[in-house]
């Protein structure tokens, strides 16, 4: 691919703009020990040099050395300093977008402590500044920007679906008066959705409505802005990422919500809960937490009662990377499953050491690299198979979609469920 000098300049300028103490530190710390490969599902699958996390670090650190260090200017090849040239850019697109799930597993295990996924995202930001985001990923980002949700759902369609779900809910015994409140002001909980839920998989919305009803929560959904995802986190475009967070922030303000509750998703809660305040440089005046943490609170406070006997089939948990390893939501899902499932079995490794499902890092959206996405998931398939579980529960719709494909591809014969569905199934109404 031939990239004009002006665009390359934009990429390099972005690197300079982003140069914080943190970035400079991580760019200078890799010692090329080469031990990180065994912590990366891409490298473990393919064994190719290009997937080695240390190599991914070098893709951006080499550019840093070339333009920001003395040795890089006078003796670039000696220290592996590298021009941002067309060849380098092609390599970056292939590996930085197409060969990394930004799952952060290598970061946790790095012998030095280099935040590798942070460097990969910074490299993505450079590519985004050069207008080089893979088309499919960019199209998901664009849909969110122009239509207000990443699937381009018209507001009327959303409302129709929610009303339909509410009607359906009333047919369930015990939920005759359950509600899916829309745009209600001053409630305790403003809930969010992954657009995938109303569009194709709405059972988790009904499930949460049941849980909210059982907990006697005052809650609402917004039909103006509700999207919990933020694919600009994956494309690397901080401007758009901030814009999307700002919209949700404004919506919470408009509805005077006390708590913003983030639906089951990995990167979205990470983007909104952890990166968002930094992107918009404003602390949230409301509490922001994930729905997993909220449901754990309900159980702990006795606001909902669960009967584990209602979920008898053996169940295992897949930890979404952005929720567990980079979001600290680690013990809460286990606490919930202890109360909601009779036969819970851990996969190994788990918690902050869990392997990515293969769909992270925007991989699920990037059809360009779909073949790799399924192949690297063999590790996850083996992990699931070893548990012997019949149900895999995971609090992330992105992981769910990937696991549904993995289930078929590797013939696991399991059911994939959201956390809300498992909790709703175990509810005991008083």
């Amino acid at each position: 691919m031939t990239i004009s000098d002006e665009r390359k300049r934009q990429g390099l300028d972005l690197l300079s703009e982003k140069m914080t103490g943190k970035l400079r530190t991580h760019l200078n710390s890799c010692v090329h020990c080469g031990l990180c490969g065994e912590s990366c599902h891409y490298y473990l699958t393919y064994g190719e040099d290009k997937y080695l996390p240390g190599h991914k670090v070098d893709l951006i650190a080499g550019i840093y050395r070339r333009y920001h260090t003395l040795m890089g200017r006078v003796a670039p090849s000696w220290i592996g300093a590298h021009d941002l040239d067309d060849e380098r850019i092609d390599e970056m697109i292939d590996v930085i977008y197409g060969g990394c799930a930004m799952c952060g597993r290598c970061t946790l295990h790095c012998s030095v402590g280099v935040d590798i996924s942070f460097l990969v995202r910074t490299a993505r930001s450079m590519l985004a500044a050069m207008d080089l985001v893979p088309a499919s990923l960019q199209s998901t980002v664009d849909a969110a920007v122009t239509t207000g949700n990443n699937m381009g759902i018209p507001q009327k369609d959303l409302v129709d679906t929610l009303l339909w779900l509410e009607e359906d809910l009333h047919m369930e015994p015990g939920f005759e008066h359950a509600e899916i409140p829309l745009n209600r002001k001053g409630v305790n909980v403003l809930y969010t959705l992954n657009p995938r839920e109303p569009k194709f998989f709405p059972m988790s919305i009904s499930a949460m409505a049941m849980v909210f009803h059982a907990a006697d929560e005052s809650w609402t959904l917004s039909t103006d802005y509700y999207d919990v995802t933020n694919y600009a986190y994956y494309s690397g475009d901080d401007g758009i990422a901030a814009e999307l967070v700002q919209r949700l922030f404004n919506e919470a303000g408009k509805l005077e919500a006390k708590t913003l509750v983030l639906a089951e998703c990995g990167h979205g809660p990470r983007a909104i809960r952890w990166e968002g305040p930094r992107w918009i440089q404003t602390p949230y005046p409301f509490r922001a937490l994930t729905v997993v943490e909220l449901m754990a609170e309900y159980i702990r406070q006795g606001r909902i009662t669960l009967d584990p006997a209602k979920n008898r089939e053996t169940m295992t948990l897949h930890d979404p990377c952005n929720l567990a390893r980079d979001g600290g939501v680690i013990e809460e899902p286990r606490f919930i499953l202890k109360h909601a499932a009779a036969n819970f079995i851990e996969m190994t490794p788990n918690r902050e050491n869990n392997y990515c499902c293969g769909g992270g890092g925007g991989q699920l959206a990037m059809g360009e690299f779909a073949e790799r996405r399924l192949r690297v998931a063999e590790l996850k398939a083996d992990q699931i198979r070893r548990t012997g579980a019949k149900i895999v529960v995971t609090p992330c719709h992105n992981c769910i979609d990937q696991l549904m494909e993995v289930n078929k591809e590797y013939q696991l014969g399991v059911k994939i469920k959201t956390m809300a569905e498992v909790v709703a199934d175990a509810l005991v109404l008083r």
Partner: protein
Amino acid sequence: MTVWNAVLLTAFLISAVSSLTLFLKTVAMRDDYDPSEPKGSIPPAVLYAYTGAMSPLKKETANRHWPTYTAGMLYHAGIFFSFFWLLILATGIGLPAVLNRPSGVLLASTALCGLAILLKRAVSRKMRALSHPDDYLSNILSTGFQVVTAVTLLSGSGTAVLFFYASLLFLYIPVSKLRHAVFFPLTRFYLALHYGRRGVWPPPERSGL
């Protein structure tokens, strides 16, 4: 003070000032204001970053690579031990001569670890693909430093060669990957800020909530 003492001191000062500048410039750089509400507490995470998180049981880069990890640790211990002896010899502080021989043997063996790592880098296809000339020279200087210190201690010969060699090493630190020595503590610190704020570090008690 011999002329070699003077060379060594000069090289050390140049290296120390450059390294300190590198460090302080980085520390003084702006960092993004992060107003997210912390889930965990940062001070224990910082402590954990330099202690528990460094445990080989916690890191696959250690426990999936025991031979390399062990060699690497000994190699680094040897570098610090060589610096210790350099300080003793350069300042003229007398230590009982009986320590020379065991120290020399110890450094010879840690140098072997360094050599093993160098060979791995040169022989393994994966490592060659990841390496730049700087990686080899950085190892050669650090391993050689231990060899020269060992020889000096074992032979009881003059310190001129050691001081010269150490000067080269000092001068190379700030312009090469050896600068990771300067950045390492900062790296751990930034990682602790990240995992600490989010409640990942230190790992909570496993007894539930």
